């Protein structure tokens, strides 16, 4: 989000170069955040990178010899706990809250102020939900599922249809080869809307109005797909937010099965996650899009600005040049992340008694989930901490930004002193290191399961180790070059 500020100077310079006389109205009068993270200092970078390397080599030599996460360890809680949390009444309440909040967002976007930071919708969707649900999911499991407004609407419509027609609605067969691909594409589209389309602030960035239209369009698409393929089918494979948040929930120790809440060994859910096509694409999309958002503020800034200048020289309009440039680099990040992972898979194939390439590719996809989560924390921790203050004070009391004060908190502001720069650094680095260790753990466990033989398994893990060290240190590098 912050890159647009820097870019504005470039756009200004380009305008001056073009001899434009009037500076166009900037749609993003104020971007969401008024504060940017400082790059992590060199000593912290060096320490973190060393810890990552040492931990990795330790992991290779001291790994366990029988798989620990492959066995399904789910055990239901007692009846009262289960009934209290996942019975009919709380389910209906959660669904109602989800639909209500989606409604408030769209209403605020359509009727409220066009100032992005004063309108409920942008912060609620792009910060509170987009960053909040992965966090909650990792800790507590798939919390989004009961609150999912589209699932609620889809089920309500389905029930109504069933009552009127006296038969269940006819469904198309979902093509199984498509797997989670629609969700992966949706994820890229969503981030594109936020960081690429939204960055083109010269004439029309991502305004609350546009976001509301996008939300309506997505609602229409989702309901149509649910009508075609069935609510649950689409929730599991195509509905981006469900599939994406569910991916993170695989790390959590809690899971609901057939209406019963239960406990499982943390991370053990992940081992059974990547069973359908598109799973690799989804986790790669998560890491790639976050990388791009981090890199455009630092590591890739100059390259992006150069390409932008070239496109402007080539006769593109400023907005389209900016969006085209960002799109190209976003695509580059996605391909780069995919290439690194596939290289690791290709390497593992060379180890004796290796399973097929396809089995390896799907079989290790879940080991990237902790890395994807670590990237999210590293890049958005401060944004989340500061912007949530806005969410729960003035955006709650004054969702439209029209001067109303529902809960009496409309005049509160964001305290940018709440978390110091040093704390942000430590959280960022700790997230990457912990994510790295978790990824290695999952990969080691899977290798033991696939090879059986400890020595061959360890040999295969040189490759995943290189992949993870690569991702973690790239993440550190992005942090160290932020906003330079």
């Amino acid at each position, binding site marked *: 989000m912050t890159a647009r500020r820097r870019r504005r100077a470039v756009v200004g310079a380009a305008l*001056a170069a073009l001899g434009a006389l009037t500076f166009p109205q900037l749609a993003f009068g104020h971007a969401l955040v008024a504060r940017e993270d400082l790059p992590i200092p060199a*000593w912290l*970078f060096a320490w973190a990178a060393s810890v990552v390397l040492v931990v990795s080599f330790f992991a290779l030599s001291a790994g366990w010899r029988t798989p620990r996460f492959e066995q399904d360890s789910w055990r239901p809680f007692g009846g009262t706990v289960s009934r209290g949390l996942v019975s009919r009444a709380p389910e209906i309440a959660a669904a109602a809250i989800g639909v209500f909040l989606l409604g408030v967002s769209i209403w605020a976007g359509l009727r409220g102020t066009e100032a992005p930071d004063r309108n409920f919708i942008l912060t609620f969707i792009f910060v509170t939900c987009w960053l909040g649900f992965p966090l909650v999911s990792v800790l507590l499991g798939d919390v989004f599922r009961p609150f999912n407004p589209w699932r609620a609407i889809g089920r309500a419509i389905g029930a109504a249809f069933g009552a009127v027609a006296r038969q269940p609605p006819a469904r198309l067969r979902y093509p199984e080869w498509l797997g989670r691909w629609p969700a992966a594409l949706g994820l890229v589209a969503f981030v594109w809307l936020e960081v690429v389309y939204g960055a083109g602030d010269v004439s029309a960035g991502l305004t609350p109005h546009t976001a509301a239209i996008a939300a309506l369009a997505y609602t229409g698409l989702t309901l149509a797909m649910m009508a075609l393929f069935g609510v649950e089918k689409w929730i599991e494979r195509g509905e981006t937010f469900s599939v994406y948040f569910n991916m993170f929930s695989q790390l959590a120790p809690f899971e609901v099965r057939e209406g019963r809440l239960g406990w499982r060994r943390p991370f053990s859910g992940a081992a059974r996650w990547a069973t359908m096509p598109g799973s690799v694409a989804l986790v790669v999309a998560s890491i790639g899009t976050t990388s791009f958002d981090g890199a455009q503020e630092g590591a890739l800034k100059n390259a992006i600005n150069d390409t932008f200048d070239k496109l402007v020289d080539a006769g593109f309009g400023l907005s389209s040049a900016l969006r085209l440039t960002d799109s190209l680099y976003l695509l580059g990040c996605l391909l780069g992340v995919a290439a690194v992972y596939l290289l690791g898979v290709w390497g593992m194939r060379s180890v004796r008694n290796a399973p097929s390439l396809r089995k390896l590719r799907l079989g290790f996809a879940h080991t990237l989930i902790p890395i994807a989560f670590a990237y999210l924390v590293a890049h958005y921790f401060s944004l989340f901490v500061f912007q949530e203050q806005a969410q729960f004070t003035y955006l709650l009391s004054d969702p439209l930004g029209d001067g109303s004060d529902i809960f009496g908190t409309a005049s509160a502001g964001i305290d940018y002193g709440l978390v110091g*720069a040093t704390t942000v650094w430590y959280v960022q680095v700790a997230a990457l290191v912990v994510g790295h260790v978790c990824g290695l753990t999952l990969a080691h466990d899977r290798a033991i399961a696939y090879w059986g033989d400890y020595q061959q398994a360890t040999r295969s893990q040189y490759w995943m180790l290189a992949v993870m060290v*690569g991702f973690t240190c790239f993440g550190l590098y992005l942090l160290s070059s932020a906003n330079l």
Partner: protein
Amino acid sequence: MQSNRARAVVGVLLVAATVVLFVVLSGGDDDGDSEGRKQATTATEDKPRIEIDQVLEKGNGPAPVPTIAVKGGEPVGGVRDLSFASGDQVRFRVTSDIEGEVHVHGYEIEKPVTAGGSVEFDFPAGLEGGFEVELHHGGGETQIAELQVQPG
């Protein structure tokens, strides 16, 4: 076996390349860090930091604060980097040939500036992070400086 060895070599080379990359990168960052330490030292000596910028810029005797000149709505010499240690006194001046308001994000300080006039800022650096300094003018806003407040 032969192909395995080739793969192993590729792997070792990749790791080596990664390590070299880190050394290079952290080496580059070291300069920034020692600079930061220099600033921190001057700050602890309890002297106002020597404003090398201004001395170079003005050339004639010590000027009180760094000055950002705005011409035609754009900062002369591009977006200026202002770096302070947490707890220091942030001081800078903006001269502008157009009328507008200078806005320090995060700190939420806004001061008007007249065409051809100047405005001075002097406030304690209480919030850490990177903050944008903008000139709001006739329907547009331009970033003129980037204020960085490093942990003290």
